[in-house]
């Protein structure tokens, strides 16, 4: 860095861009660039692959009647599901947080738990019991039942942290309870509602397994079919670009509607909790029936179905050792992906928090981008890249691991960020002034202090990778199966009994964080309400 003495007072120069702080260490810059590069790689090769067949061909492909049908199918599903999730999520959260509903603690956990069941397992649960379920309504029902916790969770947390003073002030200013809810409470929880809806919509755009099971054609299903069965990479990539565009529109829409906070932050503030609405006997019965029905449909049916098939399985005789092999593969890939994503998240977070500049902000935004990218799109981009330019990578374990790492990089960044506070900086400075070199300071001070965040990041990515289906189907090494792919093979062969143990194992893996999340909410509620 040049800090040559400029004129008096120091004249402006580009060198001053860094002058407020020290230049970020090279390793952070390199790590940040690598993360950004990995996120961009699939997108770039998606575009390259799509235009390979020529823009004329591409536009012919995209302007087909099929595309319009897919768009209509995808959009009407997204609208219906998002609105249903919002209504159910907000209503359930309000009942659990703000009323005298009996067993609130229990319901707070039970209503979050469906988050721990992969969507395609929910679909499996329903369809294996009732094979006639298919089409639009089946898709809406199943997706709503598996995604509403994404709204319920942040809204409940936000309601628990609401300051009672606001609503009391509104009431004292002459507003009735309903108008208070609309004009005060809803305003307060609005970012949480929107943040939840965003996740729901993006999840819908990315979903493949469920729609395949209920035979409902969306973009993702069509892309998968074009690529896997039609071997038409150009068409698949072209449609993927439309899907990416849809994701970006959703993101922009969320920003435009004022959803600043992605997921409600769950800091524990010991302030006076909002008052609870006393439900009469009739309302208690009604609300209770509602939450029982909701958790019965969302949790009871899939779990019951799994149990049923586990017990009555036997439609296929399979060696019991097989589950262990697939479990080991899954664990191996997921652990490697979690390690990679966490390692990439560290420099991204360090740059974003310590060396605020246009460069570091761009890197951070890119790291969050995969949130809006379906796993299928990322997988397709990687395939396009490896088939053309790095064939040894094609369908290698490394490619699958990289795909997971890209796909779940946002989760890793969130996890690492939660543990990286500004309070670290003075500690590191003191460490330097005590004669330790930067690397020693990082190992002895920074690393131990951010370790919990690294652990959280690792766990989040591990669990998400272990239950990922779509990208895995495209990228898993030939002959090497994971829990998800083996489950899928059995399910598509209607060997439900054989599929059940795989699904059960995946549910077991991802139920842990769902349970922990709901516990955290209960703790919050205890601070806020009661």
């Amino acid at each position: 860095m040049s800090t040559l003495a400029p004129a008096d007072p120091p004249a402006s120069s580009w060198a001053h861009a860094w002058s407020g702080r020290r230049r970020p260490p090279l390793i952070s810059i390199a790590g940040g660039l690598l993360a950004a590069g990995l996120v961009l790689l699939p997108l770039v090769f998606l575009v390259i692959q799509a235009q390979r067949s020529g823009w004329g061909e591409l536009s012919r492909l995209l302007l087909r009647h099929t595309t319009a049908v897919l768009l209509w199918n995808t959009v009407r599903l997204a609208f219906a599901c998002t609105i249903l999730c919002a209504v159910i999520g907000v209503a359930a959260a309000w009942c659990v947080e703000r009323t005298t509903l009996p067993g609130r603690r229990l319901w707070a956990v039970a209503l979050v738990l469906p988050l721990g069941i992969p969507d395609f397992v929910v679909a499996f649960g329903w369809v294996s019991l009732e094979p006639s379920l298919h089409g639009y309504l089946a898709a809406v029902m199943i997706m709503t039942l598996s995604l509403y916790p994404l709204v319920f969770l942040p809204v409940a947390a936000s309601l628990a942290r609401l300051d009672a003073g606001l609503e009391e002030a509104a009431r004292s200013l002459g507003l009735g309870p309903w108008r208070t809810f609309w004009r005060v409470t809803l305003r307060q929880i609005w970012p949480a509602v929107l943040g939840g809806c965003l996740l729901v919509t993006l999840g819908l755009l990315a979903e493949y397994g469920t729609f395949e099971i209920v035979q409902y054609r969306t973009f993702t299903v069509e892309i998968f079919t074009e690529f896997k069965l039609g071997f038409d990479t150009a068409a698949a990539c072209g449609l993927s670009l439309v899907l990416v565009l849809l994701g970006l529109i959703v993101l922009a829409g969320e920003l435009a509607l004022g959803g600043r906070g992605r997921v409600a932050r769950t800091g524990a503030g010991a302030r006076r909790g909002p008052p609870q609405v006393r439900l009469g006997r009739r309302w208690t019965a009604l609300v209770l029936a509602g939450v029982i029905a909701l958790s019965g449909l969302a949790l009871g049916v899939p779990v019951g179905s799994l149990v049923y098939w586990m017990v009555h399985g036997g439609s296929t005789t399979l060696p019991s050792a097989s589950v262990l092999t697939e479990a080991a593969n899954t664990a191996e890939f997921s652990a490697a992906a979690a390690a990679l994503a966490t390692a990439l998240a560290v420099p991204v977070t360090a740059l974003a928090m310590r060396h605020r500049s246009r460069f570091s902000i761009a890197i951070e935004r890119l790291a969050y981008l995969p949130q809006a990218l379906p796993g299928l799109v990322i997988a397709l981009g990687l395939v396009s890249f490896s088939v053309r330019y790095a064939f040894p990578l094609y369908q290698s374990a490394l490619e699958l691991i990289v795909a997971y790492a890209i796909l779940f990089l946002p989760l890793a960044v969130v996890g690492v960020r939660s543990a990286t506070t500004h309070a670290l900086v003075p500690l590191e400075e003191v460490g330097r002034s005590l004669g330790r070199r930067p690397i020693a300071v990082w190992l002895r001070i920074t690393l131990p202090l951010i370790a919990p965040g690294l652990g959280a990041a690792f766990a989040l990515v591990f669990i998400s990778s272990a239950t990922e289906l779509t990208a895995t189907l495209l990228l898993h090494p030939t002959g090497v199966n994971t829990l998800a792919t083996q489950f899928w093979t059995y399910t598509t062969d209607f060997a439900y009994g054989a599929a059940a143990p795989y699904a059960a194992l995946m549910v077991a893996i991802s139920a842990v964080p769902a349970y922990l999340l709901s516990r955290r909410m209960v703790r919050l509620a205890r601070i806020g309400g009661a």
Partner: protein
Amino acid sequence: MSRLTVTGLWKGYPAQPVLRGLELEVPAGSLTAVLGLSGCGKTTLLRVIAGFERGERGRVQLGEQTLDDGHSFVVPERRGIGYVPQEGALFPHLSVEANVGFGLSRRERRGGAVAELLQLVGLETLAGRFPHQLSGGEQQRVALARALARRPELLLLDEPFSSLDASLRTRVREEVNALLREQGVTTVLVTHDQEEALSLADTVAVLRDGVIVQRGTPGELYTKPRDARLANFLGAANLIEAAFEDGIARTSLGALALRRDSARPRAAGGLVLVRPEQLEVRSRGAEQLGVRSRSLERTAVADGESAPGSSEDALAGIAGTVEQCRYYGHDALLHIRPEEPHGAGLLLARVHGEQALPAGALVTVAARGPVTAVEGEEPCEAPAPGAA
């Protein structure tokens, strides 16, 4: 132990420099306080000296070694400068012992250096504790022991006492001061608390708008501040309009002797500084011990250079009314409104606690001892409250 020299130091964005050509000398073995309001650049200065940030221009030198001159730059870990940040910044995941030993080699740690340091700060029984189990004062002392562990040539303290509550602050301050004196380490203390700066430091340097506006012993700064702002910043002050003539300032309080060693006023008229404890207050009508009326002008001039308070000569003074009394126990600060012909604004007078007078009391006020001419035209209408 080395002398620190900072010359022509610039730092910050060109449009908004934080430090603008700052000059600072810290003699070897001394304790220098850098005193300034928050946002004046104190912390930035410390960070440049410690090497956490680079100066834009200028030079930082410790003894013979150039630390930063815009070209060469010594990284923090090679500077041998101890640093105690605000709130201590103890490593939360390390015990007291490990914190103190952080900068030491394994051999030094085995050799009992840590125990010695803990003994030095009186915390030998807390070696196994973790930072969150310590009180604020204990944390501060651990941070100090940690910084002293490597026998730094220079020690930097960034508002080390501001996070402690008032009762603890005085005690910890005294302990730290004693320790630093004992170790004889060159120290730069940054603070916004004038009382802390005046009571602890050998030298006080006042930082304002990115430059050191005045540097001197606490006594010099208190009695002979360069300008009116500084006078107010360093303590409660009466700034009174005066006409200067031949070593005498003619004011509404009468003719007062100007300090002989202070700079001669440049203009024919200006402000003089009269500290509240230089005002003598008598209840009007009531007899007061040891007070005789004398010829005002003669005694004031003759009083010349004698220290305030040692004078037996009290002055006739002017009449006024007490408007407000701030009672602090050991003393009290009276706000006195002079009667009309004298015209001066509100006067601040400090009297012994037992001499506190209620609002509305009629008094006579007289100035004692020599006064200092200061630059700046702000009359002291709004006194700095609470400066006990």
